[in-house]
């Protein structure tokens, strides 16, 4: 029997704000333990939370990016459970009136090869709610210590419907979500820093069966690939178990990346009754039309919208857009270059194939680059105008430009690299080469057109590279024809 896999993902995204969700203490990562705290963060007696407007606003923005329904009123609830990473032993979260209801995320599956775009699909979301992050436990031999620096960081929990069916879809979903959050200036979604965390619910059922199978929750998948690998392992485990006549238990399992296995953490019966109820310390928040419009105005183009536009507007191929689209900074660079450029596609090629490589070799970031969009635009213009050849640009201009930041026209001028379009001088070079190479000329006359490349090379050499290759090609053919 074949089995169908059903996956739902719960992703926690830390919303980047200046201060914590319920107090003015700043947020951060890597500071000395318990320095980003105050009586509110530590849940001291008498301390009260006040909602951070920026966190709410960014959550509204997320909802708009996801096409969610933003309710008129959203409120906060207490989720009660005891754990030492939770300073109050309840987490302020949202139960029945989350800030985002429904929504969809467009994803792109991995294509058949690196150069070919995969299928796009829409993943339906259940909701997204805003809550406070908890602290971090550090376990030692005989005791454990708590660092509350992370506690109170605004956290959006984004939940999908159970509509994913493969580890690849989950992988694509997380990449798409991360790109969207980066575009929206919501979060960098660096999973290593805990800015994005993912739990998965997964079950299998015989193909064709309506009813969902027994659900297993998987935690501790600390990277996007980890999610893919964890799910792949779990599908295999569940399928083998069922095929061997065993039963799947409703449980929470952890992903052990080092051993590449999931392991049992706890059964459902041990799970909590969270006793949710409205937090009496916080007033519900009304999201009026004026506020919505203000946020709406800040919604950027979404990643796949941009991908489609680049194709339609600039005819950029997938090999290029797959590099540009995940990085808005790169896209902005490209678009600036495209503006002053007769062939934007060429600018994109220079950016992706040359500049990124050089930066990579030098261990530099784009913002450290001495080459600006204007450099690339001018370089492409010079080539298109026929002032220099692509080769000259690559061999003699680009490197200097990268190192010094001089404009390409100035480099061409200083180095005397301007391509020769003087037909008289060129005709002399061509005639000399034809006269000196009767063998290849005969071959061409005999129908081997490729032999012209040798002659072209000789002419370029004679002109010290400055001859316009297209012109050389045309002139050689004319002269050989005449000779015949």
């Amino acid at each position, binding site marked *: 029997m074949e089995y169908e896999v059903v996956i739902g993902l719960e992703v926690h995204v830390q919303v980047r704000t200046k201060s914590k969700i319920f107090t003015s203490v700043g947020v951060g990562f890597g500071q000395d333990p318990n320095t980003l705290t105050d009586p509110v963060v530590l849940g*001291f*007696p008498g301390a009260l939370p006040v909602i951070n407007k920026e966190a709410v606003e960014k959550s509204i923005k997320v909802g708009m990016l996801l096409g969610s329904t933003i309710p008129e009123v959203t409120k906060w609830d*207490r989720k009660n459970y005891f754990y030492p990473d939770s300073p109050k032993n309840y987490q302020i979260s949202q139960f029945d009136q989350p800030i985002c209801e429904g929504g969809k995320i467009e994803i792109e599956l991995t294509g058949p090869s690196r150069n070919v775009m995969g299928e796009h699909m829409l993943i339906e979301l259940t909701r997204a709610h805003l809550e406070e992050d908890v602290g971090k436990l550090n376990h030692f031999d005989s005791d454990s210590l708590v660092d509350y620096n992370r506690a109170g960081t605004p956290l959006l929990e984004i939940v999908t419907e159970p509509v994913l069916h493969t580890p690849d879809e989950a992988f694509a979903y997380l990449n798409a979500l991360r790109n969207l959050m980066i575009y929206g200036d919501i979060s960098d979604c660096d999973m290593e820093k805990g800015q994005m965390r993912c739990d998965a619910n997964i079950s299998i059922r015989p193909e064709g069966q309506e009813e969902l199978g027994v659900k297993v929750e998987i935690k501790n998948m600390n990277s996007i690939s980890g999610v893919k690998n964890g799910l792949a392992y779990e599908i295999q485990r569940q399928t083998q178990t069922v095929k061997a006549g065993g039963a799947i238990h409703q449980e929470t399992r952890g992903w052990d990346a080092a051993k590449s296995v999931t392991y049992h953490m706890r059964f459902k019966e041990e799970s909590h009754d969270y006793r949710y109820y409205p937090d*009496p*310390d916080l007033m519900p928040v009304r999201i009026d039309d004026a506020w919505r419009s203000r946020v709406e105005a800040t919604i950027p183009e979404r990643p796949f919208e941009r991908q489609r536009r680049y194709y339609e507007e600039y005819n950029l191929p997938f090999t290029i857009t797959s590099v540009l689209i995940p990085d808005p900074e790169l896209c902005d660079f490209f678009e600036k270059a495209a503006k002053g450029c007769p062939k934007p596609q060429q600018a994109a090629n220079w950016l992706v194939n040359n500049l990124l490589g050089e930066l990579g070799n030098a261990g530099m970031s784009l913002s450290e680059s001495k080459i600006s969009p204007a450099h690339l635009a001018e370089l492409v213009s010079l080539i298109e105008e026929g002032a220099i050849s692509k080769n000259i640009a690559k061999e003699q201009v680009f490197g200097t430009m990268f190192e010094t930041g001089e404009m390409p026209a100035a480099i061409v001028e200083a180095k005397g690299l301007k391509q020769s379009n003087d037909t008289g001088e060129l005709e002399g070079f061509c005639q000399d080469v034809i006269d000196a190479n009767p063998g290849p000329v005969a071959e061409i006359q005999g129908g081997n057109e490729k032999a012209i490349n040798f002659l072209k090379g000789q002419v370029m050499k004679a002109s010290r590279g400055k001859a316009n290759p297209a012109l050389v090609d045309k002139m050689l053919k004319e002269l050989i024809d005449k000779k015949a």
Partner: protein
Amino acid sequence: MSNDLHYKTLTELQALLSGGELSSVDLTQALITRKEAVDPQVRAFNSLNKEGALAQAEASDKRRAAGESLGQLDGIPVGLKDVISVKDRPLTCSSKMLENFVSPYDSTVSQKLKDAGAVLFGRLNMDEFAMGSSTENSAFNTTFNPWDLERVAGGSSGGSAAAVSAGSVPVSLGSDTGGSIRQPASFCGVVGMKPTYGRVSRFGLVAYASSLDQIGPFGRSIEDIATVLQIISGHDPKDSTSIEEEVPNYPGALESQKGPWKLGVPKEYFGEGLDSEVKASIQKAIDWYSDQGCEIHEISMPNMDLAVAVYYIIATAEASSNLARFDGVRYTHRSKDVENAIDLYFKSRAEGFGEEVKRRIILGTYVLSSGYYDAYYLRAQKVRTLIRQDFMKAYETVDALLTPTSPFVSFKAGEKNEDPLQMYLSDIYTISANLAGIPGISLPCGQNSQGLPVGLQILGKPFGESGLLAIANGYEQAHDHSNQHPTL
């Protein structure tokens, strides 16, 4: 200075201070002496930082000498219930759980009192975490009633009421969740006021039931209450439930707001269980208002009989999560000899909390549990709305309501603490105001045949503190009840 300072009102003391006849240091020293004389019997105080109080008094005197007095409270000792945070001072909530806790920050009211130049004078005893009606639930001491040392001061702000009644401090702050200011004020023969919910910031008030808790003043006159309320009121950006409503001039309203008033007498407050002598005193007060030309309307609050039940669902539900943070992990009592984290929770909480606190945590946990939430908590919230509507409907015809504060006068220590239900009924007339969020005041309206004080409760409209104070002030000015003091 002579001993007679200790029963002067804040207003009288301020006049002496500003007239140069008295220094804040002398006043503070006199009250320290008084406290040391009477408190061994009354036990209103959990702690008193004498050096700190005298240093604040000295600073006040310097300000005054430099012509920079900060106003009506400058140099006046004010006692605080031990549930209101003061930076670097103990904050015990009369619980073993916080016996050694020192707060690292100021509550908003403490900051406001400091800014007004008040001398923060000691930490006042209470029922543990404000849960109780007699201060017998304090983990440290029972506070006794200055009028009869065998009787209780009431609760939960028993220390705040008894300290004012005993002359240890002219004014104090308490907190009122179901009557915890008004009932002890009534038992101890002083004035106590619960302002409208949202009038005074709760930031720094250790939460018992967040949607019901409100800080308010105790004093020996309506005018003193108005003076303190003026200082502590106002919107606080640190408390989302405090309301952006302008603070009127409360002392000024005592004179400017004049009757005759339309006053409501809800019949449900005069039924079974009301002590006949208390009833007679309240009736006399109602008759007085009538004689002044006030219209007296008999009205009905049909949902009043549900108030106690609703209160014990909502308050305990909120308490069960508010008190979850006291767990042995960070700053509370921590049990020795624990096996693991769960054991640490169980033992620390078992040792740190008293019986009544545990009872309410268990009750609150139960009513919020899956499968019971709708039947209890959600339903209680709906009834709460009905109770509020009863009040709003009444206020369409009347300006305020006149009722007894408590069905009985102070009872003997030990008399009711074996029967929680009996104890809960002592708040039967005060609880509704918290559920409705309206302001209420209790002021002395005579004594029973045993010489024990009776309190008249006046309930007002939301943010109608000015009118409430003016109505109470009229009665106080025409009577001598507030000038009666216990013999200690």
